[in-house]
């Protein structure tokens, strides 16, 4: 996809998934991303914020398992929908939120 703003730059439309879960659940999400075939992702540790059950503190300094973590993954729609399907089951048992959105990337092979 090209447009006037980007000139000759070729952009590829993919899906982005952002997932916020308790740090102790991060391996569950990783297992799911791997099973769906997501090639790589970003994990942001020590996320804090306000939720239904009040303010969630960041992690304490001697415990990586406390606090929240956020995953950001980008892949084709089929793969991301697969992740979302697994997450829907996970969120029946564990707290967490996820966001799906359209993104454009320059190097589509990077997210294969």
């Amino acid at each position, binding site marked *: 996809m090209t447009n006037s703003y980007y000139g000759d730059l070729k952009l590829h439309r993919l899906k982005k998934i952002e997932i916020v879960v*308790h740090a102790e659940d991060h*391996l*569950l999400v990783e*297992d*799911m991303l*791997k*099973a*769906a075939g997501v090639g790589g992702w970003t994990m942001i540790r020590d996320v804090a914020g306000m939720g239904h059950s*009040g*303010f*969630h*503190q960041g992690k*304490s*300094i*001697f*415990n*990586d*398992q*406390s606090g929240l973590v956020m995953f950001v993954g980008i892949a084709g729609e089929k793969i991301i929908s*697969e*992740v979302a*399907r*697994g*997450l829907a*089951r*996970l969120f029946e*048992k*564990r707290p967490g939120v996820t966001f799906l959105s359209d993104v454009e990337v320059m190097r589509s092979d990077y997210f294969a």
Partner: protein
Amino acid sequence: MNMMTPLIAVEPLLSRTEVAGLVALAARRVPPIWPLETAIAVNPLAGYEKLPFETAVAQAAAHMHARQSLPLLQWRQLYREGKVAHKALRDAAMQKLGGIYEAMAPIVPHVTQMDLVMARLLHLPLRQDRYGVAEPSPAAALIAKWCAAFFDQGQAASAMPHRALGLYRAVLALLPYDEAYRALTGAQGQQLLLSVPRDPLDAIAEALVALQVPAGQEEETLAALVARLPGWAGHIRWRTEHADPDVAAPAPATMADIVALWLLLERSGACADASAPASPTDASEALAAYFHITPDMWDSRPAAARTRFAAVAHMQEAQLGFIFMTAAEWGYRNTLVPQLQKMATQKTAPRTADAQLIFCIDVRSEPFRRALEAQGAYETLGYAGFFGLPIALHKLDAARRARLLPVLLAPQHDVAEAPAQGREAQAARYRMHEAQIRHSQNLLDSAKSGTATAFATAEATGPLAAVVMAARTLAPRWLRKVRDAYVPQRTEVIAPSLHHDHGQGAKSCFSRAEKLGFALSLFKLTGLSQNLARLVVLVGHGGSAVNNPYAAALDCGACGGHAGGSNARLLAAILNESDVRTALAEKGIKIPDSSYFMAAEHNSTTDDVVIFDQHHVPNSHKADLDALKRSLEKAGAHNRTARAQKLARTAEDLHTGAVHWGEVRPEWGLSGNAAFLVGPRSLSQSLDLEGRVFLHSYDWQNDEDGTALTTILTAPMVVAQWINCQYLFSTIDNDRYGSGDKTTQNIVGGIGVVQGNGGDLRVGLPQQSLFRDDGTAYHVPQRLLTLVYAPFERVRKIVETQDILSRLFGNNWVTLVVIDPHSGKALRWRCDAEMGADATTASALYEMEI
């Protein structure tokens, strides 16, 4: 779920990610199990912590066919020993009955409901219950056998083939040749081997359909499979979640692999139905006989009396055991809390200590600290034994790095060892000697296991081995002395280095900001006075044991099952650096030039203390060091004598046990652990806490925003709770939650132990760590009591914003008592998550009403 299914093609209903999620959730049914070389205490019921304690214990017992309580016979023995106070037992029984009105309700003339319960607790004959090692089912034995072969870490003479394919696929490749599999599954099993998917997630998805598992029951079905072999499943969790990647890379395995194997056996009809639960207890006849209640007496009694009688008669051992446990906890709490409250009101004048020593929070530090404080003007503090350094240590000549930090943390820094400064020649000699030993051992191992050389090796080395064995048996200390005379002590010639060298010049392992952070944490978390002594010593700890698979369990849990000396040496070196001191001064912490930091290691088996790097001590501090060494020696002798009495041995014998290959109980470890105290030493200094309390120093006035207390409660206290639960559950069912008798254990794969020649990897502590030789319990299974000396409001805010704390305190896994510095009042955290009654009120109320 034992059902034969027709071999027809099935279409999975669940996607791979759904199965992955379900397996990951099911995996939590068991905790990770660390290998022997880094044995870490874990709560075997960690996966149930979201449930109230009593419910969790009942559910886990049903899932793992385990006991819910220590046998009543054992509880009665503890009661006779005074470990359970009579009054506390009555109070706990009364609470169980629903209060004083119910407890005092008459059943027949002169007999109350309380009398019935007390008779059941203390006097009625007991039904013979299950003891000993349970045999695994044939299906469990089959999977356990393949797990042992697959996960072997070099113990086997020839490795299992196809391991690179992963556990499930490697076993699939070999099952056609397995006679045990053929006998269990017959033709159906062989056909399934040809048709099942080769990917474990796909195989699970297909099996759930083939076995007609109802929608919504998938997770529970998978979790039940995980719990069938909690040891091997726990080992998989350790590999996937906590091991370095190079450990698992040659033989990858996930929980999906073992679950897929179970489902293969389920589909081929190889899994027998679980044994029927034991019939419930009915003590009606025994109770009636004990109180001389005849059937005709009921005619004149109201129906309610008979109902109450039946309720007590049908109480199960688990319920009665829970009353005993509650009583042990209440008795302990109601004795300790008033003592601490009293100490809190007493003002102590600040004084300059001859030396300050910072010990690990481990319960074994407490009696040693008390013994040392009695020797002179020594101030002691408690801090997590890894001293706040999130490091992995690359030991010289070791194949893998050691994680010297709590398992709650991932290593952030890699530190290497190097020859100690000025000891390079001795270090070279030491390394050469160790290399010779290593090569000889490898050669001998190869020769022993070679098919052509095994007998010749036995013939050739047998006489020498007999001499060595005789020396190790009859004169182990002499043998150790001979070795020490020729080989330098490792810690004297090799030290962890603050610098690493990758061929481009030495570079610091830590940035200045990181060093400052480690130093600040020490002061902030412990409240270490800025009125520093001339010598400040960081004291790590480790145990000593020979030929003992559980040797690492005696080391420091905060250092990942290693001795803590390396961490202490690194932080001491950091705190002696002038630019770190300058940076600390900018933060308001002034370390006088006259203060010198040192590192030491307390041997909890012998009570010897090694002080490291003494050759670096400035001349100005040598007299201080000599005085401290004399005091440490006296304190060690005193503590050794006291500990020897608890082991029913002589103090001298503890030194022998530390080097004897036949020793099964070199020390009691953390047996008896009962409480975690967060506060200044002045609260507990005059009390004999009997080595039962984790002591973490804390100054509430030095922590206005509560971050230090948050750290203490969410990390060191959580580790203490794991330890407490491991000891608790290993005691109440040593077969299921512990590892049984050491004398019948065998090491498997270099990673764990099994009982006899196979079966599941054992998950907890051995019998000898918890029970005396006569079989009576030394450890009292009671839940952790956490005591915090801090303002009530600060603690409340922390607990409410930290999920892990509201879960542990709210679900009664840990009792929290807060002593408020302003009012001196003690408040207990109630399970309904609100600050509740005065800590001593509950039993006091009952006392008044009785």
